[in-house]
């Protein structure tokens, strides 16, 4: 649900990073935060536990630039990936314009990836959204680790929609901006379609 402000000439959109616990959602936002010019970003807000697991959400406002005199802003959120935070995940999805699914490439996380994607679908549909129609990008994270699932297999397992997908190492930033760009573009095209 975007916010189009003709008065301040701004367009605000909401992107949510989703995925199983420890897959690297917060790390994505941290990297984006570090690599963005100060005038383009607000504070990175993290509501986290003592052990740095996301408790409610991370939030990062980003100003991408101007189109036809309108400031384009994206509000990036992450959900808490741990299974028992289901209720909070649902809340964060409210008003979402685009979703990034961050998958953990490690073999032992395969089941968790599938469950989390299923959870995403259900939570979206409860709010009246359809994952098959939403701007969506897929990220295969932790490609630097040794025990990982081949990308072709992850594609088959998770990317049933054949949305843009990216190999990533969020700790070094590999694939992070590519993923953001892919989803942000879709969000803007979607807006264009509707107005």
């Amino acid at each position, binding site marked *: *649900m*975007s*916010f*189009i*402000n*003709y*008065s*301040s000439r701004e367009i*605000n959109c*909401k992107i949510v990073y989703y995925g199983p616990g420890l897959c690297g959602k917060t790390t994505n936002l941290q990297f984006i935060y570090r690599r963005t010019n100060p005038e383009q970003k*607000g*504070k990175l*807000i993290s*509501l986290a536990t003592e052990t740095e697991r996301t408790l*409610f*959400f991370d*939030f990062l*406002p980003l100003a*991408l*630039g101007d*189109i*036809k005199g*309108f400031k*384009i802003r994206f*509000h990036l959120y992450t959900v808490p990936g741990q299974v028992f935070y289901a*209720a*909070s995940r*649902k*809340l*964060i999805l*409210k*008003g979402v*314009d685009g979703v990034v699914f961050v998958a953990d490439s490690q073999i032992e996380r395969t089941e968790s990836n599938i469950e989390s994607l299923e959870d995403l679908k259900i939570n979206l549909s409860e709010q*009246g*959204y*359809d994952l098959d*129609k*939403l701007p969506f990008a897929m990220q295969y994270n932790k490609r630097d680790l040794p025990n990982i699932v081949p990308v072709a297999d992850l594609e088959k397992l998770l990317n049933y929609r054949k949305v843009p997908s990216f190999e990533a190492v969020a700790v070094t930033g590999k694939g992070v901006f590519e993923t953001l*760009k892919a989803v*942000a*573009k879709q969000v*803007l*095209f*979607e*807006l*264009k379609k*509707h*107005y």
Partner: protein
Amino acid sequence: MMGSDLIMYEEEFQRIDAELKKLYHQANAKVVFLVDKNGQLIASAGETHDIDTTSLASLTAGNIAATGGIARLLGEKEFTILFHEGEKDNIHISLIGQRIILVVIFDNRTSLGLVRLRVKKSSESLAGIFDEITKKVEKEKGEGKLEEALFAEISDEDIDNLFR
């Protein structure tokens, strides 16, 4: 896009802005602001210079969302007013209609009673303005005006250029 996007026009924005300024003065508040339930800041008035209003907006919406979730678990509809008391500053959060949140931050220069009273008055006016915006958006959408106003002009290239 599913659900309806929030759209703000110059004319209504001026009226909202005036209403917030009025509330700010009459309640003797420090800061007054309006947030959409999804965490987007709509407008603010008062001593906003040393406050990070963007973060505040997102956290306020999170707060409302969380208490709304609790309310549903308890079989309540929604808590329409939240109040947090601090050592110096207090924060009064209330819902206007289904999607707008009004936040008033105040200290001991005023009282909760006065804030409540003024919030109630302003809420009615603000709700009226937001109703008008909804009607206007529907009308313009029906006439295909919004299209011309903005997005028809945006090319794929414009979007690509954002990401160079």
